[in-house]
């Protein structure tokens, strides 16, 4: 037993690793990005390829289940598994958006990770080889999910709307009120919310008002759903109000996304599903 207690070497190794971790934490972001990209492109490359295959196989299973169910009613009950049905529905909606989008785009699997901060960023199985570039918007059939921050050959890292750095210009459906959306701390019980800042005081938004990207700047094209107004969050009397917003797209449940390659124009029509 005594040989299992810490020796000087053990303590040195521990302190050394802690010091390097702390240095890594305060290292400038471009260096962090380069190191992370190098690790993904070397040590992790075969393992991420395995994870991508697992995601693709899962998708194929959902498609296959749908086909068999259509072909054979007797198999319906056996294959009517909730998770497969949900996955199939998500794929159908993604395919619908894919067909309606008029701008160049690619679809990508989301490679979820086990870290407790997965969902602030997401690893996507499409990279520069597929034409993805930093600042490309990430969409789901429900609306805006985030924006690409860094790109490797085969993968991209996206900043998702709950991330503290996320910002997007927003407008109401009628185009009469504008503001900036950012993540909010006001949610509770696992309910993550956005907050719309800088709405003129005299322009009162009713709960349920839909918000879309405003198309300011070069990042997000106009007309991507962001969410719905829930309530007033804060106000500076006579100047401006901020509103809590229920986001349209939720990162935890998403398995596939669409990445816009050359964002431009007004995309509002692409999010109107036939029959809705």
């Amino acid at each position, binding site marked *: *037993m005594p040989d*299992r*207690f*810490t*020796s000087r070497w*053990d*303590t*040195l*190794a*521990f302190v050394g*690793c*802690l010091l390097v*971790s*702390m*240095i*890594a*934490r305060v*290292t400038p972001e471009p260096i*962090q*990005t380069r*190191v*992370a*990209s190098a*690790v*993904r492109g070397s*040590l*992790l490359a075969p*393992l*991420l390829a*395995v*994870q991508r*295959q*697992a*995601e693709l196989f*899962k998708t194929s299973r959902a498609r296959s289940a749908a086909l068999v169910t259509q072909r054979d009613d007797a198999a319906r009950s056996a294959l009517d598994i909730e*998770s497969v049905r949900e996955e199939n529905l998500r794929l159908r909606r993604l395919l619908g958006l894919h067909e309606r989008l008029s701008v160049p785009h690619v679809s990508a699997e989301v*490679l*979820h*990770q*086990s*870290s*407790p*901060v*997965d*969902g*602030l*960023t997401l*690893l996507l199985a499409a990279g520069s080889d597929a034409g993805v570039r930093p600042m490309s918007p990430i969409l789901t059939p429900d609306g805006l999910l985030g924006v690409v921050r*860094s790109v490797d050959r085969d993968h991209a*890292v996206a900043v998702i709307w*709950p*991330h*503290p750095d996320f910002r997007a210009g927003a407008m109401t459906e009628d185009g009469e009120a504008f503001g900036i959306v950012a993540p909010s*701390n*006001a*949610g*509770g*019980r*696992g309910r993550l919310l956005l907050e719309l800042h800088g709405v003129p005081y005299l322009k009162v938004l009713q709960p349920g008002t839909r918000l879309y990207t405003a198309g300011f700047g070069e990042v997000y094209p106009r007309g991507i759903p962001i969410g719905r107004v829930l309530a007033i969050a804060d106000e500076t009397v006579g100047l401006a109000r901020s509103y809590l917003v229920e986001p349209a797209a939720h990162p*935890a449940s998403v398995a596939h996304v669409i990445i816009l390659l050359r964002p431009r124009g007004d995309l509002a029509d692409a999010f109107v599903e036939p029959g809705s």
Partner: protein
Amino acid sequence: MRRSIDYGLLTVVALLIVLHFALRPWLGSPRAAPDFLLLALLVYAIQARPGAAAIAGFVVGILSDALTPVAFGSGMLAYTVVGYLAAWGKAIFFAENLVVMAGFFFAGTVVRDVLVLLWGGQVTGGALLWQLGVWTLLKGLTTAVVGVGALLVFRNWLHVRLRE
């Protein structure tokens, strides 16, 4: 004799790492699914000296930070501490008992999540409490269950003498 123990351990660790990427996507919500990567580190730490376990934790932390680069360095620190404490604590405190081992895997998951979240500082307020109070506990439970299963299945390779 010593070499065969090492090969058994290496095989189990490698298998857990592959399962993390191949099997985990099938296990439902990624927020609650068992963390095979952390399990690989803890299984290694059971057999290793604290210094070696700290270095192994640091390497797993680099992988984690590369996969989820929200607060680069927080994963390295968290896994280093978990690896070191697991090897140190295992040497001093833990009996080779199924319930204790389940608690060991559960505690490792909770400590890792607490350190990543607090050192990273990106999740605050209600979201932090919800993550720690719900998802971390669920993930800890699933990881503990899988960990005990792995110990039972591979107890000969890992040279673990479990008392139930």
